[in-house]
């Protein structure tokens, strides 16, 4: 039992990986079997390019949503679209989307549909009346904050929405991402031109209508559309691909009509996220070197909650 190496030619007894036995080897002896239980890249997943592209498309979709929302706001801010037109369009979109959503519903819960429709109507009514009632309050909420701060906050919140969005389980969208998006929309809505153009002042109904429109569209784009998109993806995968591409194009064209430079940036971002990043992921996969061995903490794979409930 020496600590030093160089014990000469190995003794005749083979080394064993045990501590209870005093073995005729030095303490720093390195056997041939050293690290023999090391395993590399055991749970490695082989990705296929188009499968990854399809998944990455979801991220691109959410970026498009943000771009579309900002485009709508730009249109309203420059007075190119009246809130009434947008509201009616929004209502139409919502009804169409709702119909599509119901049509694509899985057969299993068709029996309790009546109740669901009624409760859907209830939630919609509650939301609309509350938003309408609170619009004047929400409009003046950030009035005392400087415009620069509001824009910075909006950018930050939209970024937070993109980061926190639950891409793996987008229906319903996570509360953090949804709240960030709604906060951003409240910020943006307060900078719409309504009360400054109309001499009536702070109580001008058009300004509150602007806010109301903005919030409704925020809900459509950030809450309801991801749900419909997820259902499309589950029930009609081929249609989903087309819708994705169409949405992306709408986003680029819409932004391009006001700000061509922004559209180029958006197109580049979408291209990078959907096409380039998956390529990079697959390229870098060969560099992956994950090592496992007996030192790893054992995982509890069973559902132990069954003993408690």
């Amino acid at each position, binding site marked *: *039992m*020496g*600590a*030093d*190496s160089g014990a000469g030619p190995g003794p005749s007894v083979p080394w064993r*990986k*045990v*501590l*209870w*036995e005093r073995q005729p080897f*030095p*303490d*720093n002896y*390195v056997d041939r079997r*050293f*690290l023999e*239980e*090391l395993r590399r890249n055991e749970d490695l997943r082989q990705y296929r390019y188009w499968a990854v592209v399809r998944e990455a498309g979801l991220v691109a979709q959410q970026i498009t949503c943000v771009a579309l929302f900002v485009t709508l706001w730009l249109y309203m801010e420059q007075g190119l679209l009246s809130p009434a037109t947008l509201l009616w369009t929004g209502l139409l979109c919502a009804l169409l989307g709702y119909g599509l959503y119901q049509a694509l519903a899985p057969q299993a819960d068709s029996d309790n549909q009546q109740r669901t429709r009624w409760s859907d109507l209830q939630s919609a009514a509650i939301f609309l009346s509350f938003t309408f009632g609170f619009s004047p309050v929400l409009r003046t909420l950030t009035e005392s904050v400087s415009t620069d701060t509001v824009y910075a906050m909006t950018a930050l919140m939209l970024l937070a929405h993109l980061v926190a969005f639950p891409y793996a389980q987008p229906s319903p969208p996570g509360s953090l991402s949804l709240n960030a998006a709604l906060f951003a929309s409240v910020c943006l809505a307060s900078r719409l031109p309504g009360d400054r153009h109309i001499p009536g002042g702070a109580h001008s109904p058009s300004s509150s209508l602007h806010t109301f429109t903005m919030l409704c569209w925020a809900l459509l784009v950030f809450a309801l559309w991801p749900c419909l998109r997820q259902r499309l993806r589950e029930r009609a995968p081929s249609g989903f691909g087309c819708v994705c591409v169409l949405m992306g194009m709408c986003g680029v064209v819409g932004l391009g009509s006001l700000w061509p430079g922004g559209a180029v940036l958006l197109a580049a971002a979408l291209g990078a996220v959907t096409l380039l990043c998956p390529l990079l992921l697959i390229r870098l996969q060969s560099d992956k070197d*994950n*090592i*496992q*061995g*007996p*030192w*790893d*903490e*054992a*995982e*509890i*794979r*069973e559902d*132990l909650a069954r*003993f*408690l409930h």
Partner: protein
Amino acid sequence: MGQRRREAAVPSPPGNRHSDMLTVAPQVPAKKHNICMVSDFFYPNMGGVESHIYQLSQCLIEKGHKVVIATHAYGTRKGVRYLTNGLKVYYLPLQVMYNQSTSTTCFHSLPLLRSVFTRERITLVHAHSSFSAMAHDALFHAKTMGLNTVFTDHSLFGFADVSSVLTNKLLTVSLCDTNHIVCVSYTSKENTVLRAALNPEIVSVIPNAVDPTDFTPDPSQRHDDRITIVVVSRLVYRKGIDLLGGIIPDLCLKHPDLHFLIGGEGPKRIVLEEVREKYQLHDRVRLLGALEHKDVRRVLVQGHIFLNTSLTEAFCMAIVEGASCGLQVVSTRVGGIPEVLPEDLITLCDPTVRSLCEGLENVIARQRSGSVASPASIHAKVCTLYTWRNVAERTEKVYDRVAGQEVLPLDRRLVRLTTHCGHVAGSLFAFVAVLDFLFLLFLRWLFPDHLMDVAMDTTGPQGLWRGALDDRKGTRSKSAMLKNEKAGPHQTKL
């Protein structure tokens, strides 16, 4: 200058006043070292690392080395304290950050540690536990001061998540120019070699030990009308308490005479309480709460079977303690556990509820049929396996080997850091090493070494604790240590 001090520290004749106590008397006059053990973890904190440092130090003192311990202040316990046999402990006033580990800035601990190393004429710094920031700091400063370094790793670590990637990088930096590393099991050695990208030749495996006199069987404490399964561990996730929560209802349903005795405290206690509540097992599952070290044996001897459900473990002293008390040991097959006990003393299972239940049922059946070895014979087998004297002997060999090695001078240390630890971390820490060196030069200018008082040796060849040592020969139990500490209020301000 480290060189000079090392020569000064070589004693003329080795103190062999208690060679009768040693299992192997040193034939050649072995070189004696001035060792400083550094770790954040020491008494009054309790655990494997703490008792390892304490017991190892006591055995090294017994072998005639000079040992001092440096740790951070625990509450009001700060300054210098003397434990049994003149073991001097420096409780340094460093800020504790998380889980009893100090924060590390690479610099702030240099003045204090330098004064400890210089005043005690330390030749060798032995740092313990990779979770201890103070240990890494001490290694860093010791290398700057030209002292030899040894590091003992007590734990296992994965590779998969961000936190382990960062910790492993720090470990690589810390160990790349450390003279020798000690691990407590072969699995732990493989783990450390991989984590810190080391040459396996400079890593020794020296297991932990238990004091067999602290853990003797006492079958009269058992209830013969029932079978008792004992669990003694902290109630945390890593100890597999969730598995235990699955085992208890399963086995209690099948065996009406089965009782569980669970010692320890922790956040997972709630799981066991819920299970006990749901299955109405209040009379059969007893939760004892946190145990003091002296009470562990009293609990162990009441059981027939010792169960360990850990999910990861470098060595696992608990199963050795259980076996030493004569219990049948059932454990998960994780980490270094399969290396610890021979097959006839332990039943190994996969870390699943089903496998553990099967293993336990086998042992219960054997227990009922009476075909298990008697507690006394199990104790007789275990008590020779792991002794602190053996650990100290093997550690001493590591010290002898290290003492002959050179400490890398600054230029070669920088090359080593930049070539071994990657470009970014290597360059960064090379820069820090230069700053540390400059700081040391500044401190030497401010308080020159030759103006610093040399501390009295309590242990080692010129140790002054001789009388006390002879009085207390062979009493190294923790209660004796605590008693001694209360009795002797040797405390100075730093």
